[in-house]
C-alpha cells in the first residue's frame, strides 16, 4: 500500500505557521517579482483568486481589494518546512519518498490500521512541522494520489481518504471525472470523451487493447494502476508538473569538493536540458547533499538549500546558482553519496511578467542554449559543456512583502514577546 501526504496550500501554511495574523484570512503567495498567485489558502480560493492570476490585474477588484492578503515567495522558509515535514514522516514510516516540495509518498507495505496511522501522522505533522495536510491511501501510487485529491476536496474534516479496497474504489470511480487522474492530460480526456468514456469507472472498464490504441503504453499503465496493479514502485513516478528533479546516487562516496562541483554542474546541465525541452523556465531551486544514512557510524550531514532564482532555463545560470549553494553547504570530512537539484515553480516564460532588469539577454541566451541542445542531440551528451559558471549576484527581484526567513537566518528568527 502507498500513502500520499501533501501540505494544504503549502506555501500559505508555511507563512501561517509563524504569523498568526495570517490565519483564517484569504492569503496568497506570489511568484518571483511579486508576479502571480502560486499558492492560495482555502479562503483565497473562495474569494475567487485563480492559480496563476497576476496580482497587478486582480488586486483592485471588488472582493479582493482589502480582503486578500499576500506574501512574496520565501523559498528558504518553504524548503526548511518541507525538510521538517519529511523528517516527521520518516519517524512514522519505513520509507518516505519526497515527490515535490510539499508532497511525499509513504511506503505502507506490511502495516495495519492505515487510516488510524494516517490520522496520527497527520496530527503529528500539524503539531511538529506546523503544516496541515491530507493523506490518500491506495494499493498503487496513482490511486494514492487520486485519493489524496479526493481527501482534499471532500474530506477536509478528517483529511484522509482510503481507497485501499475495490469496494471503496468502485464507489468513487463512478463519480470522479477522469481529469482528476494523475498523468491524464487534457488531450487524453478529450479523446476518451469522444468514445463515451467520462468517469474513471468507464476508463477502468475499457479493454486494454482499446486503451493502448488511444493512449499508448502510458495509458495502459495508468489503467493498470487504477485497477490496483502497481506499476510504479517507490522511487518511480511521473514527474510532477511544476517541478523537475535531477538527483543521483553517486554509486560511491565523494569526499572532494571539486568532484562535487562537477557532479552538481552535470545535474544542473541535465536539468536545464530537460527544462528547455518542456519549453518552461524555473524560478526557484533546491540543492541538497546527502551522506549515507544506512551507515550510521559515519558522520551524517544532509544539508539542503531552497532559494529563488531569476526565471531562467539557461544552463549557465542554473550551474552558477547550484554551485553557489553547493559551495555554501559543503563541509569537509563527510562521505557524500547523493546530491540533487530540484527546479521549482516551472512555468512558461510568458506566464509571468519578465524581470524588470534581467541580468542575461534572454534572446542571446536562447540562441546559445538552442545551439548547445542541437550539438548535444547530434553528437551526444557532453559534446559541448559549460567551462565556467556564471558570475555571482547582479540580480535583484522585487519582494515587497517577504516574510522573515524564520528558520534559516539568525537575524530573522520569530520574535516572541514576554
Amino acid at each position, binding site marked *: 500500500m502507498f500513502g500520499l501526504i501533501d501540505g494544504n496550500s503549502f506555501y500559505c501554511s508555511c507563512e501561517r505557521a509563524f504569523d*498568526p*495574523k495570517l490565519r483564517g484570512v484569504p492569503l496568497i503567495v506570489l511568484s518571483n517579482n511579486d508576479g502571480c498567485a502560486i499558492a492560495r489558502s482555502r479562503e483565497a480560493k473562495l474569494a475567487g483568486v485563480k492559480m496563476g492570476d497576476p496580482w497587478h490585474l486582480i488586486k483592485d477588484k471588488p472582493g479582493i481589494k482589502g480582503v486578500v492578503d499576500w506574501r512574496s515567495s520565501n523559498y528558504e522558509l518553504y524548503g526548511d518546512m518541507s525538510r521538517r515535514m519529511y*523528517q516527521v514522516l520518516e519517524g512514522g514510516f519505513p520509507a518516505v519518498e519526497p515527490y515535490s516540495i510539499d508532497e511525499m509518498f509513504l511506503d505502507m507495505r506490511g502495516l495495519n490500521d492505515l487510516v488510524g496511522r494516517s490520522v496520527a501522522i497527520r496530527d503529528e505533522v500539524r503539531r*511538529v*512541522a*506546523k503544516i496541515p495536510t491530507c493523506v490518500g491511501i491506495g494499493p498503487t501510487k496513482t490511486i494514492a494520489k487520486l485519493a489524496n485529491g479526493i481527501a482534499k476536496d471532500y474530506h477536509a474534516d478528517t483529511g484522509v481518504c482510503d481507497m485501499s479496497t475495490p469496494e471503496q474504489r468502485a464507489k468513487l470511480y463512478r463519480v470522479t471525472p477522469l481529469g482528476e487522474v494523475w498523468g491524464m492530460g487534457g488531450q487524453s480526456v478529450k479523446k476518451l470523451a469522444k468514445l463515451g468514456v467520462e468517469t474513471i469507472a468507464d476508463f477502468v472498464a475499457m479493454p486494454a487493447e482499446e486503451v493502448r490504441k488511444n493512449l499508448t503504453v502510458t495509458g495502459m499503465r495508468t489503467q493498470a494502476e487504477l485497477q490496483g496493479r502497481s506499476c510504479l514502485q517507490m522511487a518511480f513516478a511521473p514527474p510532477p508538473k511544476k517541478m523537475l528533479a535531477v538527483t543521483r546516487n553517486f554509486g560511491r562516496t565523494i569526499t572532494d569538493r571539486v568532484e562535487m562541483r562537477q557532479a552538481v554542474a552535470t545535474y544542473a546541465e541535465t536539468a536545464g536540458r530537460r527544462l528547455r525541452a518542456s519549453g518552461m523556465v524555473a524560478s526557484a531551486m533546491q540543492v541538497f547533499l546527502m551522506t549515507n544514512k544506512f551507515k550510521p557510524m559515519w558522520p551524517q550531514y544532509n544539508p539542503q538549500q531552497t532559494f529563488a532564482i531569476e526565471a531562467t532555463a539557461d544552463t549557465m545560470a542554473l550551474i552558477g546558482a547550484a554551485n553557489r549553494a553547493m559551495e555554501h553547504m559543503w563541509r569537509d570530512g563527510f562521505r557524500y553519496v547523493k546530491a540533487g537539484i530540484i527546479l521549482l515553480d516551472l512555468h512558461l516564460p510568458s506566464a509571468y511578467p519578465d524581470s524588470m532588469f534581467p541580468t542575461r539577454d534572454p534572446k542571446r541566451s536562447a540562441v546559445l542554449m538552442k545551439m548547445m541542445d542541437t550539438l548535444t542531440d547530434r553528437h551526444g551528451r557532453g559534446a559541448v559543456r559549460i567551462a565556467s559558471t556564471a558570475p555571482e549576484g547582479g540580480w535583484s527581484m522585487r519582494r515587497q512583502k517577504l516574510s522573515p526567513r524564520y*528558520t534559516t537566518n539568525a537575524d530573522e528568527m*520569530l520574535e*516572541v514577546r*514576554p
Partner: protein
Amino acid sequence: MTYNGGNATGFPSPATIYLEAVIDLAQILDLRRPSRYPVRVMGGSLPPRGIAERDILVVDSALERAHDRVCVVMAAGEVFLAVLRRSGAHWRLVRGSGEDLPLADDTEVWGVVTAIVRESI
C-alpha cells in the same frame, strides 16, 4: 580560504589528524530535529525564568505540555511567552505581566521552551 592541514609547506602537517570540526552548538541544542525552532525574545524579559530581552530560546513543538513550563503561545494574532499552569483537568497560561488566561480552543501552544542562548553577557 580555511586551513585544512594540507601540505602547504611541502609536507602534510602532523597536526592534521587533530583537526576536528569546531564545537557545534546546533548539535548540542539538537536544532536539526524537525521540532526545534529557535526564536528571539523581543520587547521585554521574564526575569523569574532567567529570560532576558534578545535571548534566543530553543522551542520544541513535539514536547508534551507540562505544568510550570515556559511556552510560546499563538492567540488572537499574537505571539507571546507564557507559563503553563495545570489546575485539575484545565490548563491556564500566566504571562509575565501576571495576566492569567484560560487555554482556549483558538489558543495554540506553539512549542515548549527547552533552552536559553545568550549571545553576550
